[in-house]
């Protein structure tokens, strides 16, 4: 991936009165990168996206687009284009006229304009539907028109505001694959706002997780899922079993802790680690716990009993009570071996890998005023 920065966000804050929608956000997004802003509603991700587009003016800070300071530029003079959550298809225009909307100002020859519209429709696989009226389109098609209308402008950055949230699950998954393919094909920077962690994980080169107007962590999908920095990040990106653990000792680059019934565990020491009261929070993902059947043996085992069970088709989610642990553990088991038939109350054994634990930092207190 080319490392030239395309978007640089420098200490951007946005206040509504005394409410901090964005609180000193800094971020660098590379040329050609598929970048996601992930977080719960109200975390500031949409405000940040709209600040890049020019629809919001940050109270402090600067946003550079391709090296140029951009806050003084209105939306119509920025090299960015946006796909709106509602798609915002112009209802009085047909598909081709929608796509050609922004081109009209470029004073192209009719032939050239037609070619660019045709190419853009091909790109989103809507060839031949140029004469369709907006109200004759399905949800997925409307989404594609919105994409084509933005891409035809050849922006340096494409901004996507929850573009898939209105589609049903099946179509959403199809569009995810297509979005990813499209981004690779056009090669420009995509910035996606989403509250769906799976969407962010599946699509992005890098993800910024946001809470309370601040960025909690920026990393690749794999890094952010496997090594979330804080408890909230870990929690937002899927299931996680949290445990209080006592610090046994610190070595260079590692911390060893006593993780209750899991025993002594050695963990990678995060940057700036400090355990003020000698206790830390550690976590292990549900899928890193494994049921042991019959005579199966594992180097690290725990005994427990099924407290609850939820059937999800391909997997079953189990809640397992362990003596000596305050909270029951969540685990995810494939249904290949009959986990879906385990009765509530059944005594089971589970295996775990001590290397699967992550050390989680305390979340900074959220204050938005």
């Amino acid at each position, binding site marked *: 991936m080319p490392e030239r920065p395309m978007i640089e966000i420098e200490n951007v804050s946005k206040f509504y009165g005394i409410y901090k929608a964005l609180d000193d956000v800094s971020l660098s997004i590379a040329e050609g990168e598929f970048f996601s802003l992930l977080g719960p509603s109200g975390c500031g991700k949409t405000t940040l996206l709209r600040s890049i587009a020019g629809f919001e003016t940050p109270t402090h800070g600067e946003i550079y687009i391709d090296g140029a300071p951009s806050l003084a530029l209105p939306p119509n003079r920025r090299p960015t284009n946006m796909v709106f959550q509602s798609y915002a298809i112009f209802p009085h225009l047909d598909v081709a006229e929608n796509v050609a909307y922004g081109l009209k100002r470029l004073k192209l020859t009719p032939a050239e304009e037609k070619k660019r519209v045709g190419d853009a429709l091909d790109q989103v696989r809507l060839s031949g539907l140029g004469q369709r009226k907006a109200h004759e389109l399905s949800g997925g098609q409307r989404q594609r028109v919105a994409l084509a209308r933005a891409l035809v*402008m050849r922006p340096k950055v494409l901004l996507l505001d929850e573009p898939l949230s209105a589609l049903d699950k099946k179509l959403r998954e199809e569009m995810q694959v297509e979005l990813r393919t499209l981004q690779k094909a056009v090669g420009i920077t995509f910035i996606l706002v989403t509250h769906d962690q799976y969407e962010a994980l599946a699509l992005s080169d890098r993800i910024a997780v946001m809470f309370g107007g601040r960025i909690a962590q920026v990393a690749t999908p794999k890094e952010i899922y496997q090594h979330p920095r804080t408890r909230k990040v870990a929690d937002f990106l899927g299931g996680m079993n949290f445990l209080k653990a006592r610090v046994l000792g610190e070595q260079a680059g590692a911390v060893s802790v006593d993780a209750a019934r899991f025993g002594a565990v050695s963990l990678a020491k995060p940057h700036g680690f400090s355990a003020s009261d000698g206790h830390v929070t550690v976590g292990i993902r549900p899928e890193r716990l494994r049921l042991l059947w019959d005579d199966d043996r594992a180097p690290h085992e725990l005994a427990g009993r099924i407290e609850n069970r939820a059937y999800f088709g391909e997997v079953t989610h189990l809640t397992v009570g362990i003596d000596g642990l305050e909270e029951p553990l969540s685990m995810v088991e494939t249904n290949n071996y009959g986990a879906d038939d385990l009765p509530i109350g059944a005594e089971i054994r589970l295996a775990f890998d001590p290397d699967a634990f992550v050390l989680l930092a305390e979340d900074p207190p959220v204050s938005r005023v």
Partner: protein
Amino acid sequence: MNALTQRLRLIPVLPAYVAVYFLFLYLPILLLPVFSFNNAATTTFPLAGFTTKWYASLVGNTVMLEAARNSLVVGVTVSLLSTLLGICAARAITRYRFRGQKAAAGLIMAPLFLPEIIVAVSLLMIVLAMGLELSLLTVILGQTVFCVPYAMSVLVSGFEGFDRSLEEASYDLGETALGTFRRVTLPVVAPAIVSSLLVSFTISLDEFILAFFLSGTEPTLPVYIWGQLRFAAKLPGVLALGTIMLAASILMLTFAEILRRRAERRTQMALMLP
């Protein structure tokens, strides 16, 4: 319950009721064109043969033509004024949230539910107290008060759900604020505006009470018709005139409703998620 509905289906009570209802509603109106083509000065059956002479007599009737001109001036001005005011009100109600919004909307709609004659009398008192001369201007002011609620309801249904992101999408695609208004805002709401103009014009054209109280020496068509009813010989001419006005009103209201539905579909569709 089930047995009852079945019995009702056997006896065509409801269809008969509906037929009588429509007959009662529309038969008198249908008699209007019938007698306007009847070759007799009285409105009695049997009909005396077909004629268009009553229509022909209208052409040379300068007093009637003057009243028609007055109605046209008043109608056009009232429809423009009440649509303009209606646009402001509808935009405020659909786009913004403010304290007293519901109350404001209610007060704008109120003239619809007040007895028109009371409104007319109070307007007359104020106009006289202010020392204004009764004229077409006073009719225009009075009818505008009365038409704004109609204009506003038509416009609100057109503006409701006008997705703000349509305008943002236009800026985002490089268009200026003025260009956005011209290329997006106006076309999307245009049907609602035309519909509001037509509805207000039609209401003004038919309106009698306010015009009667406030028009002074310049009668509008309804006031003129009222004056003619005293002379039995003039009745067929009035029927011919009434037929023309009826046809014009129905045409305009139909057109307005078509446009209103189109406007509604457009704006709703822009919002509609799959």
